[in-house]
């Protein structure tokens, strides 16, 4: 800056006249459409818009009519599932799964199977045992920095409760602290629950749809969400 204190130049003699004119635009026009009327979707079709689903997402099913006791039992089960993860009780968490139980985190919500399309997690109890063994190993280098998670589970709705299995949906929010950085993961749980011989609930399938599964990951997920 020069520190010059010259006056701001005048817009000229016409300025007053220009500002006095009143122009109204918009409304019906005659003649060919231009501008917004011309840039129709057909002119530039957008295959996908964030405001439209890229695939048919089912509307939430209403809660099935079940007994308050069953609802409470299922809710408490889901809370314990999340609390075991936060408390790092890995084996107790794995024990929540039925013998053929599967933990699945697909890449995208439209996925319906994991054998022929990629997953973020696809683990049976043997693979869970490897993951548990890995994070418990003294030389799991990535586990050296402080690392904690905190889950919230809510919106628990029992979609169906048959003699064989109970289908439950819920939502979760997980905060993760690693070193001094907090990350957020949120999304939807879909649980297929069964009962063991003693009548206890077990997980046949825990499907985890991260709402940010296709965003870029800063670092990776080391343990189940």
């Amino acid at each position, binding site marked *: 800056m020069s520190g010059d204190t010259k006056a701001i130049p005048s817009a000229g003699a016409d300025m007053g006249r220009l500002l006095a004119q009143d122009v109204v635009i918009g409304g019906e026009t005659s003649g060919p459409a231009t501008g917004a009327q011309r840039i129709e979707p057909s002119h*530039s079709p957008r295959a996908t818009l964030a405001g439209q689903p890229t695939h048919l997402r089912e509307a939430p099913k209403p809660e099935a009519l079940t007994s308050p006791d069953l609802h409470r039992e299922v809710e408490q089960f889901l809370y314990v599932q999340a609390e075991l993860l936060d408390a790092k009780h890995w084996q107790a968490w794995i024990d929540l799964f039925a013998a053929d139980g599967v933990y699945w985190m697909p890449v995208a919500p439209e996925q319906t199977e994991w054998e022929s399309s990629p997953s973020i997690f696809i683990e049976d109890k043997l693979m869970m045992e490897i*993951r548990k063994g*890995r994070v418990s190993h003294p030389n*799991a*280098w990535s586990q050296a920095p402080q690392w904690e998670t905190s889950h919230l589970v809510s919106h628990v709705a029992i979609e169906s409760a048959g003699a064989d299995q109970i289908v439950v949906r819920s939502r979760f929010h997980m905060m993760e602290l690693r070193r001094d950085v907090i990350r957020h993961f949120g999304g939807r749980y879909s649980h297929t629950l069964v009962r063991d011989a003693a009548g206890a609930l077990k997980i046949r399938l825990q499907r985890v749809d991260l709402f940010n599964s296709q965003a*870029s990951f800063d670092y990776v997920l080391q343990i189940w969400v």
Partner: protein
Amino acid sequence: MDPSALIQPDRVHKSVYTDPQIFASEMENIFEKVWVYCGHASQIPNPGDYYAVTIGRQPMMMVRAGDGSVHVLHNRCPHRGVQLVGNLKGNTGGAFVCSYHAWSFHLDGKVRAIPLARGYEGTAMNKSNPDCNVKHAARVDSYRGFIFASLAADGPTLLEFLGDARIAFDDMCDRSPVGEVEVVPYCHRMVQQSNWKFFMENQLDALHPSVTHQSTGIAAGRVEKRIKEEKGSAPLHYHYLSTFASSFEQWDGVQTINFPRGHGILKAYMGLRPQDPDTLEYEGVLKKAYGEAKTEEYLSRSIHHVLVYPYLSVQSPLQQLRCLRPISPDKTLSEIWHFRLKGAPEAIYRRSLWYFNLVNSPATMINADDLENWTKAQWGLQSDGGDWVSFHRNYGDDRIENGVAYSNHGTSEVVMRSQFQAWSKYMQGDAA
């Protein structure tokens, strides 16, 4: 800054990993000159399909035109500079239309219409001025369906640039009975808080796996052993993980081949030709397509993965590709893709999918520890705790024939020495 002073035959100065000016110079002299991978043709099958891609520091887009041709354009309207597409991928229909003032462009980037065009009469910016077109990459080419672009008008052709590293694409495609692959439409994107070079070095660093990945290798080995005891054999995917815990001596036997321009190969070590019924069926399909001899040639190539320096790692026998997009000296995005072998039995895809899920998904039990190492390396090199990075292991013991350096020991740091020789040439403006 003289790059040659930073690169010695057996060590490099730490600043090549940390200095923002060197990073800017890398973008200018390397990434914005070499042939950069944009994507696979099957990502954009239909006219109007586009994919955003970053080449060096340039936001670009790869688009399929109505005549089937592929164009790589700057994602920038020539009018006022606004980006023409706002998403990573999509279909733009018959034209790109700028969201600001509705300039529209054909899919090859040529200007199509300017609103109230008479407003440009008598000005330099009329439709016949090429400045009204979207700027395109200087050169676009593809090899076996893999599309590359170079922002430099001159320089080696794509095939000259790839050199022997083009085996990456041959090896992947030859494993299909029709010689083609198609992309699996999910891309994992991961950010590492470290310099891009750590990734490239690590890919052929055979000493690190049994140190870095021991926790996973040992945990997997324990389960694999139990399954074998119970059932006689264990699925291959346990082996994918347990191999990482092999001994130093075993890793020392896995050789590397280091080409000019920094490309390289880590030879195979996972034993991907078991004699199970799925493999035998698959080999039968290939023999029918190619005959006995060719099939044997294709399936006996000893490749774990191939590096195309400075940004690509192709694991051809398992149809995966990882592409680096450097963001800053200490931040790098990797894009991770999986491919299907057209015409191959589904079981072969599923087998490769296990590796993709276990090693390259965002919940990887392997790269978690690599990423941690590189973050710590970045911080270590940003410190004043020392100025040099050592690549002395087996220095002087490399076998060099016709410019190709073969490691006599798999763990030789010839990999890094060779990559930095290429780096140094590029940085001195020698892109040939």
